């Protein structure tokens, strides 16, 4: 990452936006005035003293649920993106370096998985097996693995043809050494960019899942679930929907802007 990274307006905007969402999600629970399931006001009550965002469809404090409801989105998004990064990198390196039948089989499997739109794959598994948070994380990461695999594979194929890799092979270094010490470092930056995009997709998928009612189980607080619960009262209490929508957008947008900024600071100044 170059020193000019923070000078880009996109990098600063990305840090600011995702920072707000992360702060609300991580530190929010410390400041929530009420519990997630406390009935403290009128059903769909508007903003009032001590409740700047009003009350939800059961008369619970929207601000409290907003501060408590980010954690589930954040940890699940980070874990699914991270797991996909690990598994996809390993498989992609193996495919690129082993070549032949291993490569063809792995690439073909990735294509088959890619034929399922992400959300549908996750919905299928969650609908049939239940809404255990780790199951959701695992399926979401499974939906991301093919993308990482193909990225790492094509990057590694490019690097593997370069002279320093050949040199390492001629020097008799073992295969794992060549993979980890020569090839992996050269694909790290594009992977970081991809990780940022995956975070943004993961937020979209996970909150979409909650929005459809298959994510975190009520009465727990969760941004996607809050949208789902309060949608019927959109006319009377728009804040109960608008607030969680904005938090999700901040997080997804921030992660995406950061990814773009990393990509750009490494590609030079040309916007492509």
């Amino acid at each position, binding site marked *: 990452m170059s020193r000019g990274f923070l000078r880009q307006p996109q990098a600063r905007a990305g840090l600011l936006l995702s920072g707000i969402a992360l702060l609300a999600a991580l530190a929010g629970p410390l400041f929530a005035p009420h519990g997630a399931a406390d009935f403290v006001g009128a059903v769909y009550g508007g903003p009032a003293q001590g409740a700047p965002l009003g009350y939800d469809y059961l008369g619970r404090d929207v601000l409290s649920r907003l501060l408590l409801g980010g954690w589930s989105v954040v940890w699940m998004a980070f874990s699914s993106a991270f797991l996909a990064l690990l598994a996809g990198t390993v498989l992609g390196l193996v495919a690129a370096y082993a070549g032949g039948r291993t490569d063809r089989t792995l690439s073909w499997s990735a294509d088959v998985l890619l*034929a399922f739109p992400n959300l549908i794959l996750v919905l299928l*598994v969650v609908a049939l097996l239940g809404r255990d948070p780790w199951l959701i994380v695992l399926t979401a990461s499974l939906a991301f693995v093919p993308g990482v695999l193909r990225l790492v594979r094509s990057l590694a194929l490019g690097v593997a043809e370069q002279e320093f890799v050949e040199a390492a092979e001629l020097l008799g270094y073992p295969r794992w050494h060549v993979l980890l010490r020569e090839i992996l470092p050269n694909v790290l930056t594009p992977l970081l960019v991809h990780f940022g995009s995956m975070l943004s997709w993961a937020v979209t998928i996970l909150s979409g899942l909650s929005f459809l009612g298959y994510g975190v189980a009520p009465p727990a607080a969760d941004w996607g679930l809050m949208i789902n619960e309060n949608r019927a009262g959109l006319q009377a209490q728009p804040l109960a929907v608008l607030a969680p929508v904005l938090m999700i957008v901040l997080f997804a947008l921030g992660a995406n802007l950061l990814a773009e900024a990393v990509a750009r600071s490494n590609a030079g100044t040309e*916007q492509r």
Partner: protein
Amino acid sequence: MALTWTLTSAFGTRFLALHGLAPWLRWLGGRLLAGAGAVAAISIIVFGATQALPSDPARMVLGPEAPESSVLTLQRQLGLDRPVAEQYLRWAARLVQGDLGSSLDSHVPVLQLVQARAGNSASLLAGVLAVVVPLALGAGCWLALHRDSWFDRKAVSALIALKAIPNFALGIGLVMLFSTTVFRLLPAVSLLEPGRSPWSQPAFLILPLATLALAGLPYLIRLVRSAMIEALDSEYVLAARLRGVTERRVVWTHALPNALIPAIQGLALTLSVLLGGTLIVEVVFTYPGLGSALNAAIEMRDIPVIQAIVLLVAAGVVLINLGADLLTVLLTPKLRTALGAQP
């Protein structure tokens, strides 16, 4: 996708020993075979996923109070006592004949249920494409011709931001803007009259269509923009300019056709993303398409309907990619001759 597909089609050609045929036929055959293989694998995944269901379908149909003996009888009637592989083959055989079973919930044949909904979703997607394709081409080319201007830089940033916003957030934002909170111009829910084409009820179509268009546009505009920039910077465009070809001809007949080729793959990707997006957007607007049908089926654990819709969508994605690859080869002189020149 193209690269890996080419690899997999190499699989197919070897398997079928299509060596004697014309090269392009061989390529097409291999490609179709790889596509069919993908659909078969998808059907195994879909079938396998429904096999993993913890509850017993026979027990679910009969209810918890039914005696064990009648559950066993129904299991035998449904073939549930057979090995899994045999169950899959029977299921696949019926599938090929167009028999998708009947809904566990409404007892209507799945085919009938899916057909009506698929028509509505297809209308919606066709409308989205009719908006997105010309807009993306126009805006992408315009930005490429004015690259690095103030407006171009702002537009690219705005597109990056727009792309990151989840579909349902876009949809809810539009509803708040046009139906509930700011203006009250359009219906917030798309309660289409059944049996009539969505196009005869355009007020219900506008907001879902706009949501999906906004979701699909940013990626495609940026793709066209960068493909066009690449074409404009290429040596053949330089050569045309040096020959004194007018700028308008350079743009329209030299650069644009070459910039369109990556746009085809991009459009295929956009379409498959939109297929996933319709799921959420249809639920946001209660639009009676495949997405809301899948959502309802999942709520009712209506397995035959879930299987049919997931299979249909995934097979649709495979078909879209196949079509895009075919178009790409047909429209790329280099690839066309490369296929023709193969020994």
